[in-house]
């Protein structure tokens, strides 16, 4: 490859990451401002977690929750305490719960089908139990939601800079001034000079070894390499919750069929009407629990929904495995033809579900005739972990003019799809207002590190394939930060990542490979944040964080967020408390 060509762009609002949050941000910003650019590392029509669909959106449906006796405040309480462990950004969660239905109606305006003639619920919605102690998760035709949203982005005159990976931020006097991107196909360095920036690059992934042994066969999209968090951290933003993770090769597994489908849900407490969980002895260990009233779960009463179901059922997936009754399966063969059809429809709208149906058909399998084995998944720093920049109630990060939306933002536990849609909308309004206060786009700096990184790689004739560096990171994180976490293990993990940075001599034959090298740079940054945060939180906190050297929960000292940020060459930690 030759010298790195630099291309400059200028705008008022820059959105980096074209998933659900980024597309919604671009749509709203585009309605208010005519100089908006949306950057995506692939094509927003099929990017992010919802690339080939997401079948569920939670919200507050007054006509259904009202008769259930659940108010908006009840739902927010349920969410903050039940899902957030009491440590969630309540202002954001409230905003999400309050406006999610508005954003769902936006999707309908963009051409997405959300109502069904056979539904007997108000609005003709299909609603199931999922996360909360009320019936508030919408099932809908989500397979092509990104196509519909991208069309809406274009209709509002937003420029789409696709096939560009966001790698660093441009900053001027401590304020945002834009972002640096690399063309994954054109091989150019793109400088986006902007008055306000919204980051929406999702969750950090590709940190851990996958159970199937393929780097890209992760449950969450492999494209998500924590680009936003890495860039923000390097620019001095404060990042919280990196220590939390879920999954972690749990013996009970989940219905993701070797990472082929994002969700699909387990039969109990979820959305497969004819499904049950069965063990290897043919016993039903998880009966149907679609009517949460069967287990006395109505309004949130101080115990997690899943905990109550597990208690009522008398066992859990992990317990079945440990007792020697594994493997476990989702058996979805019971039910009427209409039930089977509903389930196939729901799965086909969930990420990867359409592909799972397609693959099973080739092998002559379907849910009527075959049960699906539950498979372990790799650890995830996911929606429940809620890692990312600390944000206020308006998605503003600690860098003025820089906003985070959706899974990118920290502390907004499990706001998931409605979080992406509502926070994208909110961040856009904030960004447009911020941009409106200044005459000119600031002249920022921040491209030097990326230029140096790429130039060094381009100057090499031979060296280390990026996949080897990727494997090194995964060996480190899977060994030092998974089942056995401790100060000494995490410190050794940091030593290993430091060794990797000093020793790796990456090569790239083309822009596709250079993009992966840039991702490696970001994955290492996320790994370091995770290991430092593991050391800092000297306690254990439920299934999200468990240390062998501090096995007890310590609310007195650690009922808080732990924020980390760069100060010169050092990293400083500070305790932060969610605003009530």
């Amino acid at each position, binding site marked *: 490859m030759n010298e790195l060509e630099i291309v400059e762009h200028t705008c008022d609002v820059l959105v980096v990451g074209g998933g659900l949050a980024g597309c919604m941000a671009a749509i709203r910003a585009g309605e208010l401002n005519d100089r908006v650019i949306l950057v995506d590392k*692939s*094509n927003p*029509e*099929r990017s*992010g977690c919802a*690339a*080939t669909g997401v079948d569920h959106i939670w919200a507050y449906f007054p006509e259904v929750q009202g008769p259930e006796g659940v108010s908006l405040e009840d739902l927010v309480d349920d969410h903050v305490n039940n899902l957030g462990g009491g440590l969630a950004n309540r202002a954001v969660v409230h905003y999400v719960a309050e406006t999610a239905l508005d954003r769902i109606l936006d999707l309908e305006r963009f051409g997405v089908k959300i109502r069904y003639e*056979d*539904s007997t*619920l108000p609005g003709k919605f*299909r609603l*199931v139990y999922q996360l909360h102690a009320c019936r508030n998760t919408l099932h809908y035709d989500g*397979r092509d939601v990104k196509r519909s949203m991208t069309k809406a982005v274009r209709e509002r005159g937003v420029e789409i800079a696709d096939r560009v990976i966001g790698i660093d931020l441009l900053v001027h006097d401590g304020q945002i001034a834009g972002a640096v991107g690399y063309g*994954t*196909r054109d091989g150019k360095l793109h400088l986006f000079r902007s008055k306000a920036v919204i980051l929406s690059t999702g969750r950090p992934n590709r940190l851990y070894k996958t159970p*199937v042994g*393929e*780097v*890209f*066969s992760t449950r969450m*999209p*492999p*494209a998500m390499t924590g680009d936003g968090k890495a860039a923000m951290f390097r620019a001095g933003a404060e990042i919280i919750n990196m220590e939390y993770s879920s999954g972690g090769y749990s013996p009970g597994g989940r219905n993701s*069929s*070797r*990472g*082929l489908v994002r969700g699909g849900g387990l039969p109990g407490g979820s959305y497969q*009407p*004819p499904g049950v969980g*069965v063990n290897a002895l043919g016993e039903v260990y998880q009966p*149907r629990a*679609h*009517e949460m009233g069967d287990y006395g779960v109505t309004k949130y009463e101080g115990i997690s929904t899943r905990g109550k179901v597990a208690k009522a059922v008398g066992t859990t997936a992990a317990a079945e495995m440990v007792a020697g009754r594994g493997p476990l*399966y989702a*058996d*979805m*063969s*019971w*039910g*009427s033809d*209409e*039930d089977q059809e*509903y389930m196939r429809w729901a799965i086909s709208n969930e990420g*990867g579900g*359409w*592909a799972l149906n*397609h*693959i*099973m058909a*080739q*092998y002559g*399998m379907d*849910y*009527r*005739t*075959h*049960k*699906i*084995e539950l498979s372990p998944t790799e650890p995830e720093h996911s929606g429940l972990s809620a890692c990312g920049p600390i944000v206020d109630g308006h998605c503003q990060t600690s860098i003025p003019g820089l906003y985070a939306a959706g899974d990118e933002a920290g502390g907004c536990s499990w706001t998931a799809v409605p979080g992406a849609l509502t926070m994208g909308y909110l961040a856009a309004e904030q960004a447009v207002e911020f941009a409106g206060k200044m005459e000119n786009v600031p002249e920022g700096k921040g491209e030097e590190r990326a230029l140096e990184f790429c130039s060094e790689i381009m100057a090499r004739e031979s060296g280390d394939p990026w996949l080897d560096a990727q494997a090194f990171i995964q060996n480190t994180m899977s060994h030092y930060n998974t089942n056995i976490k401790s100060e000494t293990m995490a410190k050794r993990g940091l030593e290993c990542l430091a060794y990797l940075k000093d020793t790796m001599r990456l090569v790239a034959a083309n822009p*596709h490979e250079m993009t992966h090298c840039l991702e490696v740079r970001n994955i290492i940054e996320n790994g370091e944040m995770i290991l430092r945060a593991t050391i800092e939180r000297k306690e254990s906190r439920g299934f999200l964080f468990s240390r062998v050297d501090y096995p007890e929960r310590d609310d007195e000292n650690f009922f808080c967020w732990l924020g980390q940020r760069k100060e010169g060459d050092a990293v400083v930690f500070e305790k932060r408390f969610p605003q009530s």
Partner: protein
Amino acid sequence: MPPVIDEELCTECEKCYDVCPQDCFGLREGAPPIVAYPRECWHCGACVIDCPVDAIHLELPLHMQIVPSPALFGPPGPEGAEDLRKAAAWSRSIIREEG
């Protein structure tokens, strides 16, 4: 490996190349695209769904294949069937209040 293009059906519209989230495809002059990075495929199915002539299907590599396991229950039998049918209808948001 994962996506397989039927070269007889392919019209070289490049839609698969255009949508792939992992940039797995490579273009060739006057010929159907190739899968340049088969191990970077995560089986999302975007190429299969968006191909306008249904020329693509996914194949799982051997080590990821789903080992079949026969289901146990089948269509609902008479015992408790009515209760189960009501519960399933509830899950499908089809509740008809009995008069």
